[in-house]
């Protein structure tokens, strides 16, 4: 697993047709590809990734692309992706405000791999 989420972006419809009920993390982006929302499907998520993504799409106006990664390490991966976004963009996308984050400085600077 690389540091970044490198799965392909899918349209909302494509994503909902493809995604199943596993645990994992996901991002929603606007038409320009800017990540506007990040979350995860954990052990208590109804319908797993499929359920969480479907629910988020109804709540996040402007979301028209989805990408997701299946992982049982959903909590640590979720925090990692948020910290990475913070390091690269200086701001966080919408996320669960109750999550306490640390800080990352990826190798090679903000654009390193």
């Amino acid at each position, binding site marked *: 697993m690389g540091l970044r989420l490198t799965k392909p972006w899918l349209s909302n419809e494509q994503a909902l047709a493809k995604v199943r009920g596993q645990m994992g993390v996901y991002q929603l982006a606007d038409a320009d590809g800017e990540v506007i929302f990040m979350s995860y499907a*954990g052990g208590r998520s109804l319908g797993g990734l499929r359920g969480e993504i479907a629910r988020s799409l109804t709540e996040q106006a402007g979301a028209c692309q989805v990408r997701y990664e299946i992982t049982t390490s959903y*909590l*640590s*991966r979720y*925090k990692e992706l948020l910290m990475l976004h913070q390091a690269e963009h200086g701001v966080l996308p919408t996320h669960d405000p109750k999550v306490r984050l*640390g*800080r990352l400085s990826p190798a090679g600077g903000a654009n390193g791999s």
Partner: protein
Amino acid sequence: MDLNLTPEQDLIIGMVRRFVREEILPLEQYLDPDADELEEDDRQRLTAKTREMGLYGLDIPPEYGGPDIDLVTRTLLAVEMSQHRAGLYAPCYGTFGGAGLAQLFEATEQQKEQYLYPTLRGEKRGFFGLSEPSGGSDPARAIQTKAVRDGDDWVINGGKLWISGADKADFGLVFARTDTDQGRNGVTCFIVDTDQPGFHVRRIVHTLRSAHYATELQFEDLRVSNDNILGQLNKGFAIANDRLTRQRIPYAAGCIGVAIKAQEMALEYVPQRETFGAPLSTRQSIQWMLVDNDIDIRQALWITLEAASKAQQGESFRKEAAMAKLVATEAGGRVVDRCMQMFGGLGVAKDLPFERWYREMRIRRIGEGPSEVQRHVIARELLGASLR
């Protein structure tokens, strides 16, 4: 030899047991099954409660404001505090506080002002940076991070792996080689500030645990003042070794607590669950699993309490601590595994805590020195000079 609890121990243990059952377990009904943090308002509310109970900061010496509770009792309390889903790595979600980095109690007054007291007040967090990609169980040889003197400073280059909490820390204890020819006598412990240029948290290391993660660190010309040496130059190994030995007792206690809880759940379940017209509890195969669990738990508990007792009395407890860590982590794994088997499909579902304990308990046989290293420590203590 009296193995009974004193009335005071009985009272304190009862308080903590009620706290776990009445405050922690209900919250876990709603938390993610892998969560290791409470929501902030719950954390504050419960921390205020442990302060009222006079049990906050159990491992803080009384002269620094901690409750004056002996190590045997603290070990028994650690067994109680871990008896919930997140209990192995987040006993009571940290609401009983901790000593932070106990090594700082030996720091200079200036270092205490800068790091220890703010940590005890909850204003700063620290991390312990010993293990490297080259290994963690043999720090005397594995440490390749180097510190080179430059005027009044030291310049550190290298990296650390498997470091907990570094991404959220304000400072850390970093062990670096200051004399390449001296083996264990060439390692120094530095207190480093994480906001200094050259300090990098490169990545999260994902493991069997989902919430609690380790990090990988890199130091690039990280400058540290000579005043930030903890202890003496080239004497860092003793600090690391002391920490590793002491840590084995609470590490063992956590495994015992989880095993006790798993066994309690199994004992409640097997008389109710029927197969082929009879309760599981009537099956000899199930009875033997419960018996083996009970024996595993008792062996681990007595060995761990003996280690705590020796440490409390100021005696050498290196062998006993290694034995406690070895026995408790392996016994804990066996107990959780048997309980999963008794619960069948439910045992592996996230509805119950067994699958989390199973994953996390597996790490315990590796973390803080794997079983093989503990056996090595015990063998050296038994055979002494004849091995060298």
